[in-house]
C-alpha cells in the first residue's frame, strides 16, 4: 500500500499514552532521561536508535515490565503507580510482542492464544478458542493450531505471538524488535502481518530498525540515544532531513548496508 493511503488513516486527537518527564535508573545507572511522549489514538510510532539507548526500557515502562522512578506515565487515562489494580487494567489494554517471541513452550498454539482471554477476561473456553482461530487465520497459520511452539519456524512463532496479543483485543500494541531474531527470509511474513495491523488503525509503538516498515506505516519516527529522545519527526522528513548529527550518523550507519 502507498504512503498516501497510510497517512490518510485516522489519527484522533485523543491522547492514549502520555509520558511526562519520566526518568528511570538501573541502580545508579541513569537509563532513561526526561522522556516526554504523547501518543494519539491510532498513531503508529517507530522507535529506533543504537543498541543500549533505552528503547526497550522505554516501551517496557509503558506496561510496567519496568518501573520508572520519576515522572508520570498515563495509559488510556490510567496512571501507572504501584497500585496493582491500575497495572492490571493497563496490561489488559496493552499488548506486547517480544524479540524472542516468548511463547509458552509447554502449551499448544491454540492454548497459548486462548490462555489470557480465559483467565484474564474470563471468557468461556469455546469462545476464546474461536477468537484464537480467527486470529490464527489472520496471521495465516490456522493449520498449526494444535502444534507446540517448538515445532514452528521463527517467523511462524512470531506471528503466533502477535496473534496471542491480539486475542486480548488490546487498544495499544508494543513491539520490541519483533524481527531482529528472525532469519532474513522470515522477516517479510512478520512485517506483512504488522502492516495489516497498522492499516486497521490500532495504536502501535514499534521498536525496529526496519526502515522500509517505518516509511510505509509510521506516522512518526522517534530516535533515541543515551536514554534520551533525540529527535522525532514524520517519516519522510525524518529520513530525508535528519536534524541532529547523532541521527544523521545513525541513519548513515544503518542505511549503509
Amino acid at each position, binding site marked *: 500500500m502507498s504512503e498516501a493511503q497510510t497517512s490518510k488513516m485516522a489519527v484522533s486527537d485523543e491522547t492514549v499514552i502520555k509520558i511526562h518527564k519520566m526518568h528511570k535508573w538501573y541502580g545508579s545507572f541513569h537509563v532513561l532521561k526526561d522522556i516526554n511522549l504523547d501518543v494519539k489514538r491510532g498513531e503508529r510510532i517507530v522507535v529506533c536508535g543504537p543498541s543500549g539507548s533505552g528503547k526497550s526500557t522505554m516501551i517496557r515502562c509503558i*506496561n*510496567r*515490565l519496568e518501573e520508572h522512578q520519576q515522572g508520570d506515565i498515563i495509559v488510556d487515562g490510567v496512571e501507572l503507580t504501584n497500585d496493582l489494580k491500575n497495572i*492490571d487494567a493497563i*496490561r*489488559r489494554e*496493552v*499488548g*506486547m510482542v*517480544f524479540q*524472542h517471541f*516468548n*511463547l*509458552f*513452550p*509447554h502449551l499448544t498454539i491454540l492454548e497459548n492464544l486462548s*490462555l*489470557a482471554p480465559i*483467565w*484474564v477476561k474470563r471468557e468461556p473456553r469455546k469462545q476464546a478458542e474461536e477468537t484464537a482461530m480467527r486470529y490464527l487465520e489472520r496471521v495465516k497459520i490456522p493449520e498449526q493450531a494444535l*502444534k*507446540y*511452539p*517448538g*515445532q514452528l519456524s521463527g517467523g511462524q512463532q512470531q506471528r503466533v505471538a502477535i496473534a*496471542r*496479543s491480539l486475542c*486480548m483485543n488490546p487498544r495499544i500494541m508494543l513491539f520490541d524488535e519483533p524481527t531482529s531474531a528472525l532469519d532474513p527470509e522470515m522477516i517479510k511474513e512478520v512485517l506483512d502481518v504488522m502492516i495489516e495491523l497498522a492499516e486497521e488503525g490500532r495504536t502501535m509503538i514499534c521498536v525496529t530498525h526496519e526502515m522500509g516498515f517505518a516509511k510505509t506505516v509510521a506516522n512518526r519516527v522517534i530516535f533515541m540515544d543515551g536514554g534520551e529522545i533525540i529527535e522525532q519527526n514524520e517519516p519522510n522528513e525524518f529520513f530525508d532531513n535528519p536534524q541532529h548529527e547523532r541521527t544523521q550518523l545513525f541513519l548513515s550507519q544503518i542505511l549503509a548496508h
Partner: protein
Amino acid sequence: MSDSREYAVGTHPDLPPPLSTSGAIGWIRGNLLSSPTNIILTVLSIYFLYKVVPPSLNWLFFDATFNGDSRQDCREASNGAGACWAFVKHRFHLFVYGFYPVEQRWRVDISFILLPLALWPVLFDKVPYRKHLLKFSIAFPFIAGWLLIGGFGLTPVSTDYFGGFMLTLVIGVTGIVFSLPIGVALALGRQSNMPVLRVICVTFIEFIRGVPLITLLFVASTMLNYFLPPGTQFNLLLRVLIMVTLFSAAYIAEVVRGGLQAIPKGQYEAADSMGLKYWQSMQKIILPQALKISIPGIVNTFIGLYKDTTLVIIIGLLDPLGIGRASLADTKWTGLTTEIYVFVAIFFFLSCFSMARYSLYLENKLHTGHKR
C-alpha cells in the same frame, strides 16, 4: 569420481538408509563394535555377565529351597548351595503386615489393592473416567487412614503394630504426597519479593538440609516431648511422618528452585504483559515448565525419601529391614542374613526402579518439540 548421476539435479528422491546402518547387524556394528575400545568393552562386559549372571540365577532360583520349617530343612534339600527362601516365606506375613492383628489384616489388604487404583489416574492421563477416579485418589489417603487406624465402626489398631512393607508404604506415600506441595510452596516463598516470607523459607530449608534425617527422627521420638505440654499424647508414627515429609520437602524446594531459575525471564514477562496475576502465571506458565525440568530431581528426592524410611528402625519402628533383623534372631533360622537382605533389597529395588522408569516416561510425555 564419476560424473554420471542417477538423478537429474534437483529431482533426487528420499531413499531409505543403507542396510548396514539400520537393522540388527547395523546396530551391533555401530554400538558394540565401532572402535577398538568399544570392542574391548563389549568383550569384557560379556565375560563379566557370564561370570555373574548364571551363578546368581542358580543361587536365586535353581538351587534355592522354597519349602521347609527350619534352616536344617534347607541344608538337606540343597546342600546349602542355593538360597533358603523358605525362611522368607515363613516370615512373609511379618514382612508385609508387621504386627498388625491377624484377624484385621484384610484392612491392610484392601488398602494395598486401593493404592494402585488411586495412583493410576494421578500417574497416567489416558485413564477412563479419569475425573471421577481422581476424586477417589484425593479421598484415598483418608480412606486408607481410616482402614488402617480404625475407629468409626472399625476396631482401632494402634500404629505401634504397623510394620513391614505396609509401614514403608505408609511413610513413603504420605511423605511423597505431602512433601511435593510443601516443597513447591517453599521454593516459591524463597523466590518471593516479600523479605519476611523469603527469610522464613530460607531458614527452614537450610536448617532441615543442614541436619541429618536420623537426628530429626530422634528429635521426633524423644525431644518433642520436652516442647509439647506435659501429658500430651502425640503419636510416634505421626511425628515420623511429619519429620520425613518436612525433610524431603526441603530438598524438593531446592530442586524446584533450580527448575524455576531455568525458566527464561521472557516467560514471566509474557505472562505479566498479558495481565495474568501472580498465581495464574505460576500455575499456568511457570510451574508446569519448572516442575517438568525438575522431574528427575524430584523423583530422585522421592527415591531417597523412600529408602530413608528404613531409618525408622533407629527409633524402634519395624520396617522390612527391621523385621528382617528381628527375624535373624530366631535360632531355628540362624545365619540366613543374605536371604533377608537380598529379599529386602529386591523389594526396594522394584519400588525405586518403577519410580525411575515412571520419571523417564513422564519426561518423554511432556517433551514438546525441539529445544531452542
